[in-house]
């Protein structure tokens, strides 16, 4: 199983890349936990999570080839 994780804005600075490839994450809660463990600065930041371009409101099962995005608060316009 392969999950792409796209990161943007301030979070891309912290993670120091724009894309991570993760294996063996069963759902978004687990992904979130792994990220916060790996990058403790994320614990202080607000962000949303999108799975396949849709923002999720609760824990979501991940399947092979899913694209997850970590989205800090939007500031376009």
């Amino acid at each position, binding site marked *: 199983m392969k999950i792409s994780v*796209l990161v*943007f*804005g*301030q979070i891309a600075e912290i993670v120091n890349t724009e894309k991570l490839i993760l294996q063996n994450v069963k759902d978004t809660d687990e992904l979130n936990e792994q990220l916060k463990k790996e990058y403790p600065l994320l614990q202080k930041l607000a962000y949303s999570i*999108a799975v396949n*371009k849709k923002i999720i409101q609760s824990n979501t099962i991940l399947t092979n080839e899913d694209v997850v*995005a970590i*989205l*800090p*608060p*939007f*500031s*376009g*316009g």
Partner: protein
Amino acid sequence: MRIYFAQVKKNIGAHSIFLGQVRNDIINQQEVKAIEYSAYNEMAEEKFHEIREDAFKKYDLICMHIYHSMGVVNAGEISLFVFVSSAHRKEAIKACEEIVERIKKEVPVWGKEVFVNENHQWKINS
């Protein structure tokens, strides 16, 4: 005085236009010289499309243009352009305002405020 405007759709009665512009704000004694915009492009395109379709469903509109600048936009330059045309002013004005608010809230775009001294901070929308 008469104002000429290259517009062939004679059923249009009102255009409501919004332009967002980068300000040279002073934050902690540092002056913003530019905002560098980035986006989750695939998702942003879907969102722009959804906002556009929703506005056409909700309001009686004739045409609509939305542009968001990407990359470095210097202070004094335009970052967002929304142009809405309708037979009637109220529809055009309400739709334009709603589209601008939805873009700010829902489209995955991020602005990095770059200061004159090359420091930066991440913009927060009000």
